[in-house]
Structure formats: structure tokens, C-alpha cells
């Protein structure tokens, strides 16, 4: 025997809204799952994203050398790097600001500051070195 009872349209609508809605929300939650997985990978393996780690090591090395070699408050000009010109120009500008130095494009200055690449001894060793030249 076949039942021919009509379903209430509101009930059908509720089921469709619940299914599609939950499906869409699960879709948006996928990013959180991926972030969790990547975060755990970073936590357990420091070299999970080696280029990112190398960039961080390079930047921390440059910062240490900047603090050692450039007095706070100096007027400096930036020497363009041979490779990754925009990257190092912006990062050196950032380090200069953290040190309270004034970046000048023209006019008198105390130091010229640039970056040169060096061979990494290990994958997580620094691959750059700060080049500081006293001008004034």
C-alpha cells in the first residue's frame, strides 16, 4: 500500500533550509579546520614552512645587527638590494622605524644601510647580512 499523504510545505522548507544552511556553515568552518591542522604542524615541526621560517630568521638577524651597528635616532639612507628590492627596502624601513631612525631620500645622512645575501650554513641559518656604511 502506498501512502499519498501531502507533506506540509513549511516542514519541507525547514528541512531544506536546515540541510543547505548547515552545509554552507560547514563549508565556512573548513578554514578553521585547516588552520588547526597547519597550526599543529607548525607547533610540532618548526621547519613546516621553511621559506617562512627563513624569512623570520633573516629579519631577526637583521634587527640584531641593526641595533648593534646603527645608533638610535640616526639619519640613514637605504641602499637598494640586488635581489628582492621592494622586500628589503620595506623591511629596512621598518627596522629603521623600530630603532627611531630617520629615513632620508635626499640630504645629509649619518649612515647608508643595505642588505646583502650570504650562503646559509644550515637551512635555518640566516641568509642575509646587514651592510652599514658611515657617511656623515
Amino acid at each position, binding site marked *: 500500500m502506498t501512502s499519498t499523504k501531502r507533506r506540509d510545505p*513549511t516542514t519541507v522548507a525547514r528541512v531544506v533550509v536546515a540541510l543547505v544552511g548547515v552545509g554552507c556553515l560547514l563549508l565556512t568552518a573548513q578554514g578553521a579546520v585547516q588552520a*588547526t591542522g597547519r*597550526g599543529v604542524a607548525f607547533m610540532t615541526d618548526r621547519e613546516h614552512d621553511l621559506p617562512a621560517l627563513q624569512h623570520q630568521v633573516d629579519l631577526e638577524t637583521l634587527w640584531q645587527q641593526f641595533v648593534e651597528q646603527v645608533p638610535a635616532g640616526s639619519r640613514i639612507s637605504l641602499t637598494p638590494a640586488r635581489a628582492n628590492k621592494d622586500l628589503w627596502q620595506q623591511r629596512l624601513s*621598518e627596522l629603521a622605524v623600530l630603532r627611531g631612525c630617520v*629615513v*632620508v631620500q635626499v640630504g645629509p645622512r649619518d649612515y647608508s644601510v643595505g642588505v646583502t645575501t650570504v650562503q646559509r650554513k644550515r637551512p635555518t641559518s640566516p641568509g642575509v647580512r646587514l651592510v652599514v656604511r658611515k657617511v656623515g
Partner: protein
Amino acid sequence: MALTSMLAVLALLAAGFPLAFAVLRSPFLAVLFAPVTAALLSTVAVVLMLVVGGPLLLWLALVLVAGAAGAWWLSRRPGESAPYGGWSHALLIALPLLPPCFMIFEPAFQWDAHSIWWLHAGYFANGSEYARATIGSPAFVFSHTDYPPFASAPVAAVWSVVEPDFRTAQLVGTLVTVSAVAMLVYLVRRALNRVSARVAWALAIAVGLATWANVPYAVTGGLADALWSTAFAGAAVALLLGADPLRRPAVPLVLLTVAALSKNEGLIAVAGLAVLVTVRGRADLRRAALVWLPVLAGGAWAVLARLLDAQSDITSGTSDARDAGVVERFQFTVAALWDVVGPLLVGAAVVALIGTLFLRGRRHAAGLAADGWVWAANGYYLAVLIGTYLSGPNEIQWWLATSVNRVTLPVVLLAAVSLAGWVAVAFGGDSRAGSQTVLDQPREPAMSGSTPGTTG
């Protein structure tokens, strides 16, 4: 460095707690809200420093004292504690947000974090004279020095006390952003107060987790996109989804201010939301006018940045593309938007359409406002986004590739808010009064002004 980071976290919680508690009247929720209020106080200190002069540390001390006095004054006014303010509710909000925050172990290497937000924190930390000179310097045009200070201010506050380091900056930014996400979760739960507790909490958490939808590093990478987007979405939930939006306006107003003072597109989005809230609350324009205060705050920063000669690629130039170029830019933009948010928007639109046709009565019984308000906010922001990509000065394919995932986050969150509302209605029980639902808090009074002293 680990000790510095931990001390920075504790300082941020301690600095923001009094004001957060005065607003919410719940110590547990106040802990979640404290990083945002601390960042807001830091922002006030940065702005005062730029306007008046002097070192940041001096202004931080004055603003913290003033904030504590304001919190004491607010606490003495009659009021009630915010609903869902128990320790178990705070844990329900915070714990699900922790796993994706493991991304904090990712190296601090995001381009914009260094070139924009931490660089700005650096010049704020060096005092007014240095900051003013750097904001107007042609050497720093790449850094968008016109961008608002909210994301950088708490980092600057920490760096004005301890030596700068990027891990601490990453941790501080994460804490403030997670605080905004927590408030989004809380406000969704509060809006769904007539729905079964289990369903409401699950949906609120789902909306919060949508913050990571397209950008896994959005919260922990030191960027401002997730911060302003979640703050904006939280305010939209409180002001557009709830039945009585202006009854507890303090938290949404703070979140709107966060959005307006975090990014330029945040200010534009907040202005649109203010228009919608004003139209929605036109019966009581005096209260509705409150939502224009955050717009004024964002506008004041824009004026200050202009006075300090700040330049940005967006404001200093527009695309010189002719008609054919505009068509091509439009095609690239729509294709990129479709890839990132298209399927989600279609799904949310289907749900909204079916819901509007068949479940409107149930929605009303669940105490939720019409879904069209949320879609209007989303449509407005999408239109602004498309207009910006069409008229902006950058090469379109590079621009889209480097930004579209991040700047569409408000679209994702508002779509998730719409979905959460309809799913709550679909899972709801009897449409007549919602009387069979399982509640974990007493219902709030329906009418505005019934408890005039409430602040949260």
C-alpha cells in the same frame, strides 16, 4: 621573549578589564572583551599623542587612569549584568576558538603585518614628533600611513615599554582579534536568545569559526582584516539581527568604532551600516543617532591623517583605465569574487529565499529581524568592494590575488550570520511562541527602554 609576550598579554587584559566589566557586568565576559577595550584605550592614547604631542607612555598613563575612572562611574550606574555572562558561557565562547589559533606558531612573516601594521606601531611608540614626521614622509608612502591606528596602537603601547619584537606583536594582535571574534560569537548567541540553547550555541560558534573561512592566517598573522571584519559583523548582528537593537548599544558601538578605526574599508562599511540602523531605528532617531559616533571617530582619523600629510595609493590615484579596461577589471573582479565567496553566497541566498517565503512567521516568533537588513549590509559592502577594485590604481590581477581572500571576509561573515538566523528558525520548535525551546538564560524583556540603566 616568551616572558615579554606573557607580560604583554597580562598587561592588555588588566588594562582593558575595568571598562569591559563596566560595560558587560560579567567578569568572565569582561576577560574576553578586555583586549578590545585595551586596544581602544591605546588608540585613544595614540590619537591624543598625535594631536597634542609628547611621548606615548604619558598619554597611555593618562588614558588608562581616565578609562578606570570612567569604568568606576559606569559601574555605579544602575544596570544589569549581560545575559550569558557565566563562566561556562565564557568557556563555550572561547574554547572552540582556540584550535585554529594554533596558527600563532606560524613564523611572523606576513607582508602587510611588517610593512603596515608593525611599522606604524614602531613610529607610534617613538612619540609624537617622530610619528608625525614619519606619517608624512614620502619614504613611507608604501606603508599606507593613512590607515587607521587601531591594529597598531596596542602593539605600540607594548613597544613603548619593552624592546620591539615581532613575536610579541603577533601575540598582541592575535589576542585583540580573538577578543573581537569572541564578541561576535557572544552577540550571535544573544540574538538567538529564543532558540534552543544547543542550536544557538552551535550556530554562534559556527559564525565565529567562519572568520578562518578563506584565510587560515587571518587571525594570527598580524593583519587587520579579521579584526575589523569580525567587529563589523558583531555590530551588524546586534544592530540588524536582534529584535531590539538599541537596548544594549555599548558593545556594538565599541565594535563599530573598532571597525571604523582599523581599516579604511572598515569606515566605509560602518557608514553604510549606520545608514541601515538609522532607517531601521527611525522611530527613535535620538538613540539611532548613536551609531554615527563611530563614523565620526573614523572620519576624525581620516582628517587627522590628511593634516599630517599621509598618503595612500588608494586616495592618491585612481585607475586610468578607459571603458574597455573597466570592463576587463570588472570581469576579473567578478571572477575572483565568485571563486572566493560565490558558492557560499548562492547557498545563503537559496536559504534566505526559501526562509522568506515559508518561514517568515517562525522567524518573527524567534525574535529575529527581517533578514533583508543583513543582506542590504552585505550587498552594500560588496558594491563598495567592486567599485574600489574598478577605480583603484593597482594592476587588477596582482591586486585581486593579494587581497581578495582577505577583504571578502565581511561578506563571508554576514552570509554566515544570515545562514545562522535561518537555520535557527528551521530548527526552532512551535512557531506560535517558541515556548518549547530549551533556554539556558531567562528571556530578555522585549521592549527598549524597559531597563534604562543597562549599558551592555
